[in-house]
């Protein structure tokens, strides 16, 4: 099926196809952007560029009551558009196979069961498209 970055978002398990992932970086200094969507926490500098940072738990509608660990950013790129997504941490990188079950969220490609836990596969292009639509 392909290689995925497995990660924790608000203490839940997710995976992102590795093709969209540029890097995992520290949270950095965020500059809030007044007037932007609530899902966008702000912008930060990254390798000479200015990159929006997206509140991933909020996008995914996560409401689990776990304390928020130290955040990291998953830096993703789709069609030349870069964005950072807040995550808890990266668990592992590796191949995943097996069928994807349909998910109810607009922002998941599907879910699969791995090591006894439910793994949501995040639709990075879908999230960026939808935010770009909402933000313009």
């Amino acid at each position, binding site marked *: 099926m392909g290689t995925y970055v497995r990660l924790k978002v608000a203490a839940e398990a997710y995976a992102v196809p590795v093709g969209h992932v540029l890097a995992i970086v520290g949270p950095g200094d965020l500059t*809030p*952007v007044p007037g932007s969507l*609530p899902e966008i926490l702000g*912008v*930060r500098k990254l390798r000479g560029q*200015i990159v929006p940072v997206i509140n991933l738990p909020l996008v995914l*509608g996560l409401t689990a009551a776990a304390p928020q660990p130290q955040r990291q950013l998953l830096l993703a790129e789709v069609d030349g558009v870069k964005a950072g997504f807040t995550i808890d941490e990266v668990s592992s990188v590796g191949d995943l196979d097996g069928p994807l079950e349909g998910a109810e969220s607009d922002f998941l490609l599907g879910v699969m069961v791995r090591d006894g836990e439910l793994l949501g596969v995040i639709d990075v292009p879908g999230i960026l498209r939808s935010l770009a639509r909402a*933000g313009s």
Partner: protein
Amino acid sequence: MTDPDIELREAFHEDVTHRLDEMEAALLAIEAGDPGTGMIDSLFRNVHTIKGTAGMVNMTDMATVAHAVEDILAVVREEGKFPPGLVDPLLHATGALRARINGAEMPVDPLLDELAVGLTALRQPRSVSPVGEPAGPAARTGATGVTGVAETGTVAGNPDSPQIPRSQPSPEQLPGSGAVEIPAWGLPAPGPGLPIAPVRPLPPSAVSSGTGSSPVPEQRSVRVDPVKLDHLLDLIGEVVQDGRRITHALGPEADLPEELSATLGSGARTLEQLRESAIRMRTLPLAAIAGPLPRAVRDFARAVGKDVTFTVAGADTELDRLILESLAEPLTHLLRNAVAHGIEPAADRERAGKTPSGHIELRAVSRGSLVEIVVADDGRGVSAEVADRALREGSLADLLASAGYSTAGQVSHLSGRGVGLDAVKSYAHSMGGALEIRSQPGRGMEVILLLPLALAMMNVLLFERGEAVFGVPLAVVDEVVEVPRPTTVGGRPSLTVRGRPLPAADVALLLGAHAPPLRTRPHALIVAVLGRRMAVLCDALVGEEEVLVKPLGPLLAGAGYLGAAVLGDGRIALLPEPAVLARGRYDAVAPVEPVHPPGPPKILVAEDSYTVRQLQRSILETAGYQVVTARDGREALRIISQDAGIAMVISDLEMPGLDGLGLTRAIRGDPARAALPVVIVTSLGSEEDQRKGIEAGADAYMAKHNFDQQALLATVERLIGR
């Protein structure tokens, strides 16, 4: 003097090549047996466009040949079928057009002859030997074995050899061909009495060998993807800023060893030159788009029966390629307006003591990092009444650009002077520039577009508000003043500058930013936006800086920024669109002081139950608070992000979509609003829920089952500090 058309040729080289590719693919398919019925339209469209663009850059020889091809295709289209015999001459023509845009000379007359033969054959299919039948093997061998010149010479030198009679009509009968100058092609014009050789049938191979034998066209420029240029400019900008940081870190120049100081100085100068030349790579002279304008003005004038002369001044003024590409449309609009509504009919002009023919000038003037593009006419200008109104209400540009405004004196089918100006105005603002209009009634009008020389670099004035730093284009800032104390006019904050009251607004409110109250002696940027002046209040000035503008990307496209810049100290400065600063004039004005925001604190109630929502609203409003409500967490977040005045959130725990815990976490995760007090109210009320709520970052947790009005108000009061 350089040929201003070179740039435009560069620009349309790609387009023409693409169209020729398409045409040749279609022709080859037809030759291969495709009836071609579906392709005739696309062939026609493509050659029509080539004709038009070639005419625009004064490549009249190309336009003529394209015109002849178009004529043939028009007949083909009428007939509804494509005789395969036409493929050769048409391929010959497309090959020659291709060679022409690559710098080769074009044998116009032989091509026209050949096409004329094709056209005649098409019209009288039975009067000549079957068109498209290959000529005799001997002729074909001869044709492929020699260059085009020699071949034509050979055939022409032997009056007995042509199998196809002398073609009619002559090239002069082809529309447009009479004006063509014969380019030097190494072939003497056919003398009288010498039969003109029908150049056909030249197989495509002969065409390509002929082209191939001509000298390789001189490479006058290198084509570079603009994205690469942007990247180069980005990198240079980074180096410039690294340089500034180093200089900053080294301390005062006077304390440095002389050699180091000299090296730093020369390094800075070299970098400056490097940056200049990188910017120059992105710029083109106005001439690159001005070519078709005289013709356009002439056509507009004819259409409305006016006599207009048109001049262009400063055509060598350079502008950012991106701006230039987008400028043609607004410019055409302004010229059309000037012709239709500015210039009076000749009789009126003479009565007013003017020359009967009107004059319109397009002028480009460089003003530092800005370029002024002016469309000036000596027509009637605005009426005295409009001029007066503009004085009273702000600016002429704003008045005329307000939607639907028209200065057309009488009802006519033509749009008024102002129609479409709003689009021109928003164009200028979207480019980080401005629109200005000057007019003297009866004397004429000047419409001025102020545009940045390069989109990537911008001179901005940087200022601080709260913890954030912002920048506005220097072009829109008139002056900066320190505000001793606030005043209000008609209940609205206002500032008296040089004896004139100006509306004032806190920049945080204009942008919807979260910031503590303004400092006691704030600074005010007096900006002229949308033609009006207003005072934008901030905490402190940082200074003027030429910054590299980086785009914020599609996710933030609607947030109202030109982009952002990374400053010497590493901070990110957001660059609001000037128009955003102007909108506050009507809807975001706020007092300069006091320390506490005016009026009662505003509380956001997020609750999905209508009853509970209204209950809480009435409790809070009775206690003197302002209340805003949201039906779920997502709506609440949207309100919080748009209304900086929200002082506190009271949220239900269970809501559809984003619930109270999610809302709380989102607020805590937003650096700008992390300190916003949040109270969670729920019917669950278990200790476990309470723990979750507190962990999520709620300041207080109240259970609905022992809901106590006084306890709620006490909690609110404690958290808001009132």
